[in-house]
């Protein structure tokens, strides 16, 4: 049994100089391979929560565990490496480095993470093969892979970002409103691809969105306001 993908215990986070907590979550857990839809309007502390899970921020009190590892026990450099090894991020927009080709963007995590390279090796795959496989699954033609990221459409960019998050099979995919820049048809198609690939690579998915229409496809739907006991107002800072 693999460890819980994300486990938050008695988490409190307050921005330096702020009068009140931005986040106060008593308990939240994301099981392995579980797909959770986290709904929250802007300003509800979503991005702060994701930064805490990614280890870019550290909680004021309480604990964040990712893949069974308590992040507070790691140095900041080790947290950076841990993030590279175990979490794939997809953002709302501008996910890609404009000066790299789509292929190089997808392969970028393998440059930062030895663990992702190793997992590919153990599965008997090369990074180049895996890029082609993911691209095919995500409906990206091989011809697109050589193009600079800045020449791709928004939909193509988001699929490249998904491939980049997934390469080397991290245990957790965190998606922060990845569909908000897409029209309704493409939203649904993108979600299909993302859910399918997460299942195929045994990754848990934490999908953050303010759009409840997408929620029905997930194992569990949560509203951030329900688990966050801190007053939503005055959260500031990250949103």
């Amino acid at each position, binding site marked *: 049994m693999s460890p819980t993908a994300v486990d938050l215990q008695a988490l409190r986070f307050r921005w330096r100089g702020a009068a009140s907590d931005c986040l106060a979550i008593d308990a939240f857990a994301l099981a392995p391979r579980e797909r959770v839809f986290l709904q929250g309007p802007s300003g509800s502390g979503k991005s702060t929560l994701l930064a805490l899970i990614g280890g870019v921020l550290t909680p004021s009190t309480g604990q964040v565990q990712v893949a069974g590892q308590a992040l507070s026990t790691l140095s900041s450099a080790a947290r950076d490496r841990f993030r*590279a*090894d175990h979490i794939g991020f997809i*953002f*709302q927009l501008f996910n890609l480095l404009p*000066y790299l080709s789509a292929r190089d963007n997808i392969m970028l995590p393998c440059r*930062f993470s030895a663990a992702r390279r190793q997992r590919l090796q153990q599965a008997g795959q090369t990074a180049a093969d895996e890029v082609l496989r993911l691209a095919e699954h995500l409906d990206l033609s091989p011809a697109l892979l050589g193009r600079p990221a800045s020449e791709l459409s928004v939909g193509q960019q988001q699929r490249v970002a998904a491939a980049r998050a997934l390469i080397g099979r991290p245990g957790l995919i965190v998606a922060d409103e990845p569909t908000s820049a897409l029209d309704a048809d493409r939203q649904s198609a993108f979600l299909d691809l993302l859910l399918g690939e997460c299942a195929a690579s045994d990754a848990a998915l934490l999908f953050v969105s303010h759009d409840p229409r997408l929620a029905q496809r997930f194992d569990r739907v949560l509203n951030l306001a329900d688990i966050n006991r801190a007053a939503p107002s005055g959260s500031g800072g990250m949103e």
Partner: protein
Amino acid sequence: MSPIWHLTWRSVANRRLSVLLTVIAVALSVAMLIGVERLRNDAREGFARTIAGTDLVVGARGGAVQLLLYSVFHMGNATNNMSWESLQKIAALPQVDWVVPLSLGDSHRGFRVVGTSSGFFEHYRFGEDESLRFAAGRAFAPAPEGIFDTVIGAEVAARFGYREGDHIVLSHGSGAGVSFADHADKPFTVVGVLARSGTPVDRSVLVSLEGIEAIHIDWQGGAQIPGLHISPEQVRKFDIRPRTATAALVGLKNRVTVFRVQRWVNTFADEPLTAILPGATLQELWNLLGVAEQALLAVSALVVVVGLAGLMAVMVASLGERRRELAILRALGAGPRQILALLMLESMTLALTGICAGLVLVTAASAALAPWLASTYGLRLGIGWPSMSEWVLLGAVFAASVLASLVPGVRAYRYSVADGMTIRM
């Protein structure tokens, strides 16, 4: 660090235009700095190798530097001549081995005419005790046969295509261009062409002292005496023994006596004279020029600072639009230190490219300008690997570029800590 190297290169390649302009600015500033340094050192070396084996230079009373400049380097003019009698007395001193008189004041198509004795070819030394060599022909014969013979320097021969047997006309005064006072009635015959020596001799027309006397025999006060014309054939009947000289090179039997002879000349009772030690006077000249050299070098260094400031400005300006790129890199697992390294590496790559391009530029420019500098100023540029002092300057420029790259680097570090993975527009 490997992902950072990869990204540095791609990111630089992506911003070609601004990168190119920045690199050009740095390259030009480095080329200027190294060019000034090279010119400075090569000029010094050129001066230092111009005269060797001469223990004293004697001329009319005046400044030491001035005497050295007009007698050896053909720069400026003498205010007074010295008499032949004084010269004979110096030559008669027991410590003196040889005396070579020099008589200046005439020119040939912009090149200086030097009246001297045939001892010049024997005793003049340059570089590391090298003698003048003939590329063709021979030295002029002693008077009276060789009065209208001339030996020309390599540059004079090359410029006008003169060869043995050609006839040339000397002009009165040392005007650089056209002279209206030609000694056209008494042409000289080229009997020898000297091999290139890298000294002012290359740009000289050498004639005998008697020849100088002969062409001025029917002249007075800088112009031909009206109505008086003495032909070259007649001139041999006149007394054309030299009466004056502009300066003289003196060689001693034993260098130990140099200060005694110098004091003797400086306190000579018959005529106010000055004797100088060429090496010591060169040193004096460097001290004079040192301030100007330092100023030139300082200005060049400032230009480099401006170039690097431009690089810094371009990098910092690009950071605004690259904040989201930094956030993406953070999400992919880059730490703030790697972000710092990325930005510093980018700046340093640009600076280093600029430095290399500057070196190429200055090498190409000196190769292109070398012939012109050599023929016009007698300045021989060294072309090749940078000298020790140039490496020091290049190292300093690189060190400055490392410091400059800290500015965008630290700024990006701060951004990446403050923004985390949040993509800011």
